[in-house]
């Protein structure tokens, strides 16, 4: 009789631990917050990369103006969103031979979601597709369309209200961008700022 009570007690304890684990997991799913309060409805976040570059070994492409428009919302307590616009201007390469004739984001919107990687909030952007047409008589990629595809994870710094994308954040979030059939390096530092209902309010993710 005592054994049965012990067994039931152990099962309940196990259940309690499981519940606690799920509760922790649920609370760990980050959400968009303004002035510390969870976002209700949707908001538009606009920004431009403070710096951004994409490197295939031997050739780096930079864009002076790498803007983005992100619509965000919380769904079941988890931050989600979609990148709806990514205008790219004044893009150059580190090569005297190659110029960027055309560059453009394709297959928009790109879905995004928030997650946590080792206690750091991350934004994951999925379905990224950017087509780059290089030109230049001496450029080997002249008339060749290079397409960057994949997903990218960037760490969010709440104190600076920025998202940072680099090889470490892509690796930590299990994401990768590919061009010419291989993983490429992408560095980007993006400010996060609401532009619609929560303008000038502190944006955080937790």
């Amino acid at each position, binding site marked *: 009789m005592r054994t049965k009570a012990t067994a039931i007690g152990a099962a309940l304890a196990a259940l309690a631990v499981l519940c606690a684990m799920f509760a922790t997991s649920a609370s760990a799913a980050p959400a968009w917050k303004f002035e510390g309060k969870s976002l209700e409805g949707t908001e538009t976040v606009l920004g431009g990369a403070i710096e951004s570059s994409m490197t*295939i*070994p*031997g*050739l780096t492409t930079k864009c002076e103006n790498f803007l983005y428009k992100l619509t965000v919302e919380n769904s079941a307590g988890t931050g989600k969103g979609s990148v709806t616009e990514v205008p790219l201007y004044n893009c150059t*390469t*580190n*090569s*005297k*031979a*190659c110029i960027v004739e055309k560059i453009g984001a394709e297959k928009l919107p790109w879905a995004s979601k928030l997650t946590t990687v080792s206690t750091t909030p991350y934004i994951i952007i999925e379905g990224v597709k950017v087509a780059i047409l*290089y030109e*230049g*008589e*001496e*450029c*080997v*990629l*002249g*008339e*060749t*369309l*290079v*397409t960057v595809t994949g997903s990218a994870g960037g760490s969010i710094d709440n104190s600076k209200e920025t998202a940072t994308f680099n090889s470490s954040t892509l690796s930590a979030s299990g994401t990768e961008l590919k061009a*010419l*059939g*291989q993983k490429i390096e992408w560095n980007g530092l993006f400010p996060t700022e609401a532009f619609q209902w929560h303008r000038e309010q502190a944006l955080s993710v937790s």
Partner: protein
Amino acid sequence: MQKHRTRVVCSALLVVALAALGLAGSAQAKLVGNYTRFAQCPYTNLEVKKCLISTTTSGEVVLGSKKVPIEKPVVLQGGTLKGVEGYAKFVAATNGITLSKAPQNVPGGLLGIVPDASSPALVKALIKFFLENSLTGVNSTLELAKPASEIVVSENNLAGEIGTALKMPVKVHLENPFLGKNCFVGSSTSPITWNLTTGETSPPAPNTKIKGSVGLAEFLEEGRILELKGAKLVDNAWSAPKAAGCGGILSFLVDPIINAQLGTTTAGHNTAILNNDIFVGSAAAVRLNNEENP
């Protein structure tokens, strides 16, 4: 008068000497550094936009039931014209060797493709002679079945791992003294057409999808040259005609034996897997390199 004539002759000689020097300078112009590999690219043709050299270092060609591993490097080189809707026509290498002839050993040798047991008496006797004289090795050499201009390259597809990256009409030359000099699978009128991809194939059954890859890309010379290391080009949806011209005057006897040995060579029964190191260069950059190094 004499003095004037001498002056004219001297001037003419000087012009000739200068012209000769100029010609010598032009002849001595050479490619240096990373550009040397494009020596056979027809870059002096201003219509040529890209130079290409692709060395197949390994892989295999499966023709029906026969698999021939690629053990000796095969080189495809030349230039490409401006692309039309993403596809550029090839221009032959300046030395005429657009596709190098590298004989590959056919496993099983002569008996592998002309088995003693199933051959008519005359063929059997001949084979016996070749076996006794150790002439049993058979080589398979890939050759272009049509002019180089029939080769088509899509750099976008090559880079994007989708669609046909390299379309090439080829024929397979089977070589052995018994087979004679004209034993081919494929011809200029009925070539084997490879639609090689770095992406995924969609072959008819019984073959199944296989994947190629663009390999490791690296830009050299500040974006003037692209190296694709370990690029895997594949096609397993091609068909091959019957072998013909094998055994010289006995081809009417030998061809059927070889074709029986090859088995079905319709689409879905053949495979080409080519592992390559590919270099693509801007022809303008190659020209400039040549001019800068007299």
